[in-house]
C-alpha cells in the first residue's frame, strides 16, 4: 500500500477542485445570461424595423405599387446602418435587397407569420468574416388573393461576439488568478490548521528513555485532536510505567545478587585466610553450593519472566482437567502440609485449554505460597469453578495473616515480599507470584489477591478456550 496523500495536499486539491467548479459554473451562467440579453436586444431592434417594413408592404395595393416598393423601402430605411433587409416574393423572386451581405440561399422558406415572430428562432450565418443574425417574416400585401411577401431582416452581431470574447478572456484571467490565490491561501490555512499536529510531533521528538515525562497539554489542542492527544499521553504513561518497572527490576536484580555474592566472597576469603581441616573446607563448599543453587534458580525464574515480558511465553495448548492437575500437586505438597498439620482441600473441577506445564507451575506456586503462609493446623482450600460461562476461577485460600490492602497490587511484582525482614529464610526470591501472573497473562487470564479477615485468598482467572494472539 502506498502512502496516502498528505492532509494539506488533500485539503488543497479538494478546495481547488470545488473552487474551479464554482467559478466555471458561475462564468457559464454569466455567459448564458449576457448572450440571452443580447438576443433580446437584437429581437427588439429587428421588431422595431419590422413595423416600418410591414407598413410599407401593406401600402402595396396594385402590382404597380409592388414595383415601387424598393423605393419606398429605401426611404423607410434611410439612416439605419448595419441593418440588412431583403424582400422576395413567396416563390423566392428577389424584389429588394438593401444589403451587401446576402442571406443564406433558402432564407425565404424560414418565414413565419407576424403572430409567431416573437418566438421564432433566429437565423444565424456568416458572410465575409461577419456574423449575422436575423428573422424572416411573411408580410401580407394589400393586393387581393396575393401571397404574402417574404421579408428578411438581419443585424450584424460582430460587436456582440467581440464583447463575449473579451469577457471570456477576462473571466479566464480572473479564474487563474483566483485559483492561484486560493491555492496559496488554503495552503497557508491548512498549515496553520495542522500546526497542533506539528506541535505534537515536536513533543514526540523530544521524548527519549530518560525524558518520558513530557506530555501534550490536552486542553491546548483543538477538539478534533483531543482524542489523539489523550491516546498519545496514555501511551506515554504506559511507557513511562514500563520503563520505571524495568529500571526497578534491574536495581532489584543487582540488589538480589549482591547479597549472596558478597556472602560467597567473604566466606571463601575467610576460609582461605588460614589453614583448616578438610571438614571445614567441605563445610564452606557445601554452604557455597546452597547459595549457588539459589542463585541458579533465581536466574532461571528471571529468564522465565523476561521471556514473558518479551511475549515469547507462548502456551502450548492442550485439554487440561484442572482437578487432576490439582490432585497431583496436592500429592506433591502433602508431606509438607502434613508436616505443618495443614489440610489440603479441593472443591470443584473444570476442563480448560491451556499449557499443562505452565498451569501446573502457576497452581504450584499459589499452593506453595498458601502452605508457607498458612498457620499450623489450618486449611488450604482450593476451589475450581466456572465463572461467567467462558472463564474458570481457581481460588486458593489459606488461614493465616491477611494481606494489607496497600500490598495487594504490589504482591505480584518481582522480588516483592510482604515482610522484607523474612528475606533470606523464605524459600523463593519473591518471584513465584510474578511467575503466576505471567502465566495467567500468557493464557489471557489474570490473577488477583484478596484479603480476608482470617487469611489470604488468591484468585486465578483463566479463559476456558484458547485466546488468540
Amino acid at each position, binding site marked *: 500500500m502506498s502512502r496516502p496523500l498528505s492532509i494539506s495536499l488533500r485539503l488543497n486539491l479538494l478546495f481547488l477542485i470545488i473552487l474551479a467548479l464554482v467559478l466555471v459554473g458561475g462564468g457559464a451562467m454569466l455567459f448564458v445570461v449576457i448572450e440571452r440579453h443580447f438576443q433580446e436586444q437584437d429581437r427588439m431592434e429587428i421588431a422595431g424595423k419590422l413595423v416600418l417594413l410591414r407598413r410599407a408592404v401593406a401600402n402595396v395595393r396594385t402590382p404597380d405599387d409592388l414595383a415601387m416598393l424598393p423605393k419606398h423601402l429605401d426611404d423607410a430605411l434611410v439612416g439605419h446602418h448595419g441593418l440588412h433587409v431583403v424582400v422576395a416574393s413567396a416563390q423566392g423572386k428577389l424584389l429588394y435587397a438593401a444589403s451587401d451581405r446576402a442571406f443564406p440561399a433558402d432564407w425565404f422558406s424560414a418565414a413565419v407569420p407576424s403572430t409567431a415572430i416573437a418566438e421564432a428562432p433566429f437565423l444565424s450565418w456568416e458572410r465575409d468574416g461577419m456574423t449575422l443574425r436575423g428573422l424572416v417574416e411573411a408580410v401580407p400585401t394589400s393586393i387581393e388573393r396575393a401571397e404574402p411577401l417574404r421579408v428578411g431582416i438581419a443585424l450584424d452581431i460582430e460587436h456582440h461576439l467581440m464583447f463575449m470574447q473579451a469577457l471570456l478572456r477576462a473571466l479566464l484571467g480572473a479564474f487563474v488568478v483566483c485559483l492561484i490565490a486560493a491555492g496559496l491561501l488554503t495552503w497557508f490555512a491548512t498549515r496553520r490548521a495542522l500546526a497542533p499536529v506539528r506541535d505534537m510531533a515536536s513533543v514526540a521528538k523530544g521524548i527519549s528513555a530518560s525524558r518520558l515525562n513530557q506530555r501534550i497539554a490536552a486542553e491546548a489542542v483543538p477538539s478534533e485532536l483531543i482524542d489523539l492527544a489523550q491516546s498519545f499521553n496514555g501511551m506515554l504513561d504506559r511507557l513511562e510505567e514500563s520503563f520505571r518497572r524495568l529500571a526497578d527490576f534491574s536495581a532489584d536484580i543487582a540488589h538480589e545478587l549482591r547479597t549472596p555474592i558478597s556472602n560467597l566472597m567473604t566466606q571463601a576469603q575467610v576460609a582461605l585466610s588460614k589453614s583448616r581441616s578438610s571438614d571445614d573446607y567441605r563445610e564452606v*563448599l*557445601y554452604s*557455597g*553450593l*546452597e547459595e*549457588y*543453587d539459589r542463585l*541458579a*534458580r533465581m*536466574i*532461571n*525464574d528471571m*529468564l*522465565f519472566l523476561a*521471556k514473558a515480558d518479551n511475549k515469547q511465553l507462548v502456551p*502450548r495448548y492442550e485439554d487440561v482437567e484442572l482437578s487432576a492437575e490439582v490432585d*497431583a500437586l496436592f*500429592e*506433591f*505438597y*502433602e*508431606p*509438607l502440609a502434613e*508436616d505443618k498439620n495443614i489440610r489440603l482441600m479441593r472443591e470443584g473441577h473444570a476442563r480448560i485449554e491451556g499449557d499443562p*506445564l505452565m498451569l*501446573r*507451575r502457576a497452581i*504450584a506456586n499459589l499452593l*506453595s505460597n498458601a502452605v508457607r503462609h498458612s498457620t499450623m493446623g489450618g486449611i488450604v482450600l482450593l476451589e475450581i469453578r466456572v465463572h461467567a460461562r467462558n472463564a474458570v476461577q481457581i481460588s486458593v485460600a489459606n488461614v493465616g495473616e491477611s494481606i494489607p490492602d496497600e500490598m495487594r497490587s504490589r504482591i505480584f511484582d518481582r522480588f516483592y515480599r510482604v515482610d522484607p525482614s523474612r528475606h533470606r529464610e523464605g*524459600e523463593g526470591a519473591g518471584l513465584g507470584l510474578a511467575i503466576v501472573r505471567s502465566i495467567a497473562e500468557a493464557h489471557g487470564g489474570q490473577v488477583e489477591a484478596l484479603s480476608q479477615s482470617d487469611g489470604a485468598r488468591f484468585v486465578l482467572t483463566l479463559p476456558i478456550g484458547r485466546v488468540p494472539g
Partner: protein
Amino acid sequence: MKLLVVEDEPKTGAYLKQGLTEAGFITDLASDGVDGIHLALAEDYDLLVLDIMLPGIDGWQVLQAIRRSGKDLPVLILTARDDVDDRVKGLDAGADDYLVKPFAFSELLARIRTLLRRGKTRESEWVSVADLELDLLRRRVTRGGRRIDLTAKEFALLELLLRRQGEVLPRSLIASQVWDMNFDSDTNVIEVAIRRLRAKVDDGFDVKLIRTVRGMGYVIERTEAE
C-alpha cells in the same frame, strides 16, 4: 565407560572433565567443533556431552556430522538458552537429552547415567540394598524381614533411590521422576518427603541407608560405617 565432552569454555570444560573422571568415566575433552567431530568419529565413545554454543562449527553441525556418519551414541546437549525452539531442534537433530545452563553437576551425572543405562538392563522385580528389599510386583517393602508400610509416592521415591543406588539424585530429578514436577519447584517438599521416608526406613536401625549429600541431593547406599 568412555565419554567425550565438547565444550569451548576452558573452566567449564576442565571441571566437567574432572567431575566425570572422578565419577568413574574415562573422559576426553574437545574444545571446539572440529576437534569434537574428529574425536567422535575416530574413537569409540559411549556418550557425547555437547555444548551448543561453540566458535566456528557449532554444536548443531557437530551433531549433524556425527549422525550422518552413522554413529548412534547418545548425545546430551548443553545449552545456555532455555528456548522451546532450541529444545525441539535439538531433539529433532538427534540429541537424546538436553540440559540448560546453569545446571547442577549431580543433575548432569544423573542424566548421563540414565542415558547410558537406557535399553541395557531389564528392570528386575526385586531391588535391594543391605537388608532393605523392595518387591515391585507386590509393592511390598521389608527391612531385616520386617514389613514397612509406605504410601504410593513413598514407594515410588524409594524405588527410584534403590534402582539408582550409589548415585546422588538431585532434588529436581526426584521431583520430576516421582511427582512429574518438571519445573523448579519447592525443594522443601523433597526434603520433607525424604525425611518421612527416612523415618520409616531408617529409624530404629543402626545402619542408616538414605543419606543427604548437602547441596546436591540424596543417595541410598550401604555406608562404610557398617
